């Protein structure tokens, strides 16, 4: 099919927006929209043109308890509105003083403990993951040769112990080592989790917050000593 033919693109976009493309054709058109600005423009045009049909429907107020699960789900990643500049400056000054005092007195480098070795089935390990003794951060060291085109990333996930959706630990490095500070939620989930997973995602990681590509590694987590 010649997607560069404007008439064809319009017809596909219209069928997509109206909702009559079959499942595989839908997914193909979504992929096309990711790559082709003309496809995105055609889709947006149809979305705008048919929008009045959606807005003509009589509004339906959601139940009172509908908001709470949304709030709960977004809470770990949310941050409050930005504080005034003087609060930021004051906080920075206090942190500076504390860091200086810490360096002069009791600062110690974090102690690292082995956490997981990430290796595809029947293949050499690609990364080694360690956690700090206080479980506030992880260190990811590349130990194998990463063969992945630049339009893809490997993303690391916690598989929560009691089931539930995987939670991202961020994109894995292609080389070298990186340290990552864990959120309270990530720490709590890691404490109860038995496995990590790695999936292949678009550059920069999954756009949805959940794995979208194939899971290529599942690795057990060593318990902290």
């Amino acid at each position, binding site marked *: 099919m010649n997607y560069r033919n404007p008439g064809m693109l*319009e*017809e596909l976009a*219209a*069928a997509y*927006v*109206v*909702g*009559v493309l*079959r*499942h595989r054709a*839908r997914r193909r058109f979504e992929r096309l929209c990711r790559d082709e600005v003309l496809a995105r423009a055609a889709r*947006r045009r149809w*979305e*705008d*043109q*048919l*929008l*009045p*049909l*959606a*807005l*003509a*429907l*009589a*509004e*339906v*107020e*959601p*139940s009172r308890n*509908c*908001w709470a*699960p*949304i*709030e709960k*789900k*977004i*809470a770990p*990643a*949310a*941050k*409050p*509105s930005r504080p005034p500049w003087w609060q930021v400056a004051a906080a920075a000054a206090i942190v500076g003083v504390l860091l200086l005092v810490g360096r002069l007195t009791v600062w110690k480098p974090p102690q690292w403990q082995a956490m997981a070795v990430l290796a595809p089935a029947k293949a050499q390990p690609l990364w080694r993951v360690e956690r700090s003794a206080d479980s506030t951060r992880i260190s990811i060291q590349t130990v194998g040769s990463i063969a992945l085109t630049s339009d893809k990333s490997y993303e690391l996930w916690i598989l929560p112990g009691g089931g539930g959706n995987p939670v991202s630990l961020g994109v894995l490095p292609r080389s070298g080592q990186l340290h990552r500070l864990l959120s309270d939620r990530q720490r709590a989930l890691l404490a109860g989790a038995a496995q990590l997973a790695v999936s292949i995602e678009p550059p920069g990681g999954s*756009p*949805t*917050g959940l794995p979208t590509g194939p899971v290529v590694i599942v690795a057990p987590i060593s318990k902290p000593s």
Partner: protein
Amino acid sequence: MTKALDDRRFEELLRRCAGRDAAALRELYGLSSAKLLAVLMNILHTRAAAEDALQDVFIRIWQQAGQYEEYKGRAISWMVSIARYRAIDLLRAARPMVVLEAAELAGAEQLQVEGPADRAEFGATRAALQRCLELLAQAQRQCVQLAYQHGMTQEQIALNENQPLGTVKTWIRRGLQSLRTCMES
């Protein structure tokens, strides 16, 4: 009561969501959840399924708010599209072929695209769509509306309309072509 659509306010709230401001999502929910739930209920039919999908839609809006800037269209259009495509995916994954009762389709026969008053530019789009839909053959109009508003597949429409699948496909294709030509004129 129908809530007004303030495009600039919606855009600002989406920008704040992209900056991880949870209060902005709360406000966006207050302004748009009743519209999105209407869209979802029309496709998914039960309140429980539609409210589950609504939660999912707002979490997607939160996660994807950073991508809105490059959409270059109306914020409400972006949000309605997220809701409609989510509902269609859920419907295709879960629902066997069903025939809607005549009563459920009663609204579909009156094709009205009147909506809340909002800015002039959108009022013009709405008037143009209304005019262009009225120019379509009745069968074409009915098929386009069943697909768009009710999320029905072409097979389901064929069953509902008691017409061969090929005929329904042709009606929809020609209906959309005529709409496009009319909207561009």
